């Protein structure tokens, strides 16, 4: 198929796109662009020994040049506000504008974590309310909002489990079972807590294999870390039995809440037997992803683990909200503040927008959208595990391999057709994985346009027009990057 016909159908086009040099390469004058009035440049005699001897290497640029530099770079970026972003296991859902309005209210935006409690009762009330919501949604009633990211939440969750085991006298239990489909952060968190991981092989249906689990459970087992639904998009239907087996062996069950979007308002990890769960508010609860800004990965636990939660805890005492600084067998503080308030309040706003009676629509629409994509692409692409998926669908490149086309080629060709690629080569349990998570916020029109693009790529492959796939992407400002060279010989600093 020619590119011109594709460009009529899909949104990606070439236009006024600017190559952009580094600021240092732009610089053309030593002087700065803005003259600040009344700045005394003389270094007082008492500080002379600290005066720098060589000029600072600050690029000389005018204000418009500086602005254009950063705006142009920003235009190379792709975000959820530019287009569809179907990264599997990442839940790239839209970030509603009303969340931003809430956190910009002066009474919330301009407070400081060290203010007296009586002057921030409103903010504490909202955070306490979020704790209640997350406790109810997860079925694990005791919540800390402190962890500053999902991975931090994982670490805190395992620290809590570690503390509980030690308090029980189970100091020797150091083995953490992690399914081979798990996120890479799971074994990392276990290792940081001084425990070692044993990988559990998935069964033929992509789920935890009960026999493999039984084989590895013993008196050294500290915990099982499980993600449900797992990263193959499959619900661990044996979850109750899995948790019972781990508990019977004296271990605890950690839930990786990365895929909570498939369950919210419908099923509760706590009811399944999970003891401790982290929640990615940037996934399930629509707060912005990354970008270097503050994140949050609250942790919810059951009654058994509650004594070990971090301090300070946000509690309600009569009509007053308080920070409780000492508590039972707490693992102590894990952040300098009670939590990253901006991102937490956005999550609260999202939950409030749905309300108790409508939260389930998030999960239902997310699961429906993923199954719609799965249904349209089945046949053209290999589906490794039969049956319905949950919030994300897993495909492989097995059919395209016959023509020498791999997952990476398909992903790169999607860019030409105006779509951010899906997650590729993860999970590791299938060869050439393509993991697609549309989320609930996409319309059927968007899903159809994406599926059309995927089907066009499959047809292009079947027609033997594989060179276009190997060459892709040809439209964006950068062609296919050499990931191997970038990893083997990274150039990390600019030098004259």
């Amino acid at each position, binding site marked *: 198929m020619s590119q011109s016909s594709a460009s009529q159908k899909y949104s990606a086009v070439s236009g006024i796109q600017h190559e952009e040099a580094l600021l240092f390469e732009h610089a053309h004058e030593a002087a700065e662009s803005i003259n600040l009035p009344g700045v005394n440049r003389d270094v007082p005699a008492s500080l002379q020994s600290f005066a720098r001897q060589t000029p600072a290497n600050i690029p000389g640029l005018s204000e418009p040049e500086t602005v254009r530099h950063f705006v142009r770079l920003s235009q190379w970026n792709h975000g959820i506000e530019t287009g569809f972003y179907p990264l599997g296991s990442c839940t790239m859902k839209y970030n509603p504008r009303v969340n931003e309005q809430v956190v910009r209210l002066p009474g919330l935006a301009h407070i400081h974590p060290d203010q007296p409690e009586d002057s921030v009762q409103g903010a504490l009330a909202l955070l306490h309310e979020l704790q209640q919501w997350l406790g109810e949604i997860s079925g694990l009633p005791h919540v800390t909002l402190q962890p500053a990211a999902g991975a931090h939440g994982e670490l805190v969750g395992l620290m809590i489990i570690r503390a509980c085991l030690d308090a029980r006298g189970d100091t020797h239990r150091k083995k953490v079972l992690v399914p081979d489909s798990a996120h*890479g952060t799971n074994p990392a968190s276990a290792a940081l807590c001084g425990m070692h991981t044993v990988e559990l092989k998935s069964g033929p249906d992509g789920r935890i294999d009960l026999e493999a689990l039984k084989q590895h459970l013993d008196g050294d087992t500290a915990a099982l870390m499980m993600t449900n639904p797992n990263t193959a998009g499959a619900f661990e239907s044996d979850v109750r039995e899995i948790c019972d087996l781990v508990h019977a062996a004296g271990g605890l069950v950690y839930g990786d809440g990365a895929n909570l979007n498939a369950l919210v308002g419908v099923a509760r990890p706590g009811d399944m037997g999970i003891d401790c769960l982290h929640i990615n508010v940037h996934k399930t609860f629509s707060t912005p992803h990354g970008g270097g800004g503050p994140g949050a990965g609250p942790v919810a636990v059951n009654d058994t683990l509650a004594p070990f939660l971090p301090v300070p805890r946000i509690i309600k005492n009569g009509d007053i909200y308080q920070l409780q600084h000492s508590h039972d067998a707490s693992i102590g503080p894990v952040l300098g503040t009670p939590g990253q308030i901006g991102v937490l309040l956005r999550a609260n706003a999202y939950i409030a927008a749905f309300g108790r009676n409508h939260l389930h629509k998030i999960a239902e629409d997310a699961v429906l959208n993923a199954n719609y994509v799965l249904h349209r692409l089945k046949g053209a692409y290999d589906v490794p595990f039969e049956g319905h998926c949950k919030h994300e669908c897993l495909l492989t490149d097995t059919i395209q391999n016959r023509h020498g086309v791999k997952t990476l080629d398909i992903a790169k060709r999607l860019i030409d057709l105006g779509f951010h690629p899906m997650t*590729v*080569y993860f999970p590791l349990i299938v060869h050439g994985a393509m993991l697609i998570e549309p989320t609930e916020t996409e319309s059927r029109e968007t899903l159809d346009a994406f599926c059309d693009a995927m089907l066009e790529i499959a047809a292009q492959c079947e027609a033997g027009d594989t060179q276009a796939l190997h060459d892709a992407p040809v439209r964006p400002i950068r062609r296919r990057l050499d990931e*191997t060279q970038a*990893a083997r010989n990274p150039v990390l600093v600019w030098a004259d």
Partner: protein
Amino acid sequence: MTIPADLKYTKEHEWVRIEGDIATVGITDHAQEALGDIVFVETPEIGRVVDAGEAYAVVESVKAVSDVFAPVAGEVIEINEALEGQPELINTDPYGAGWIAKVKMSGATSELLSDDEYTLFTEE
């Protein structure tokens, strides 16, 4: 994909060449093909004692980071230092210049497959 007849293999796609009580170990052609371009290899410390089936090295490709499991138990007596600067040796010559470590065997081994058995296993 090559599977030399003079080596033994594991179901984790490692190979082992046993000469006396010294085992040279690495990952198979099938493994390097599945991983893609290898960009970093974390080799074990010399002197480390490993159990059969224990993760003793890590290979990182553009796609994934994977543990490498020891096919035999014993003490690591030599590592392939060339991999530090040229991890791609595992891609270009997995059974030769891409070897990972030499282990002085203490007895136990993982379940080791012959070339024919490993061929059947990879075809499954």
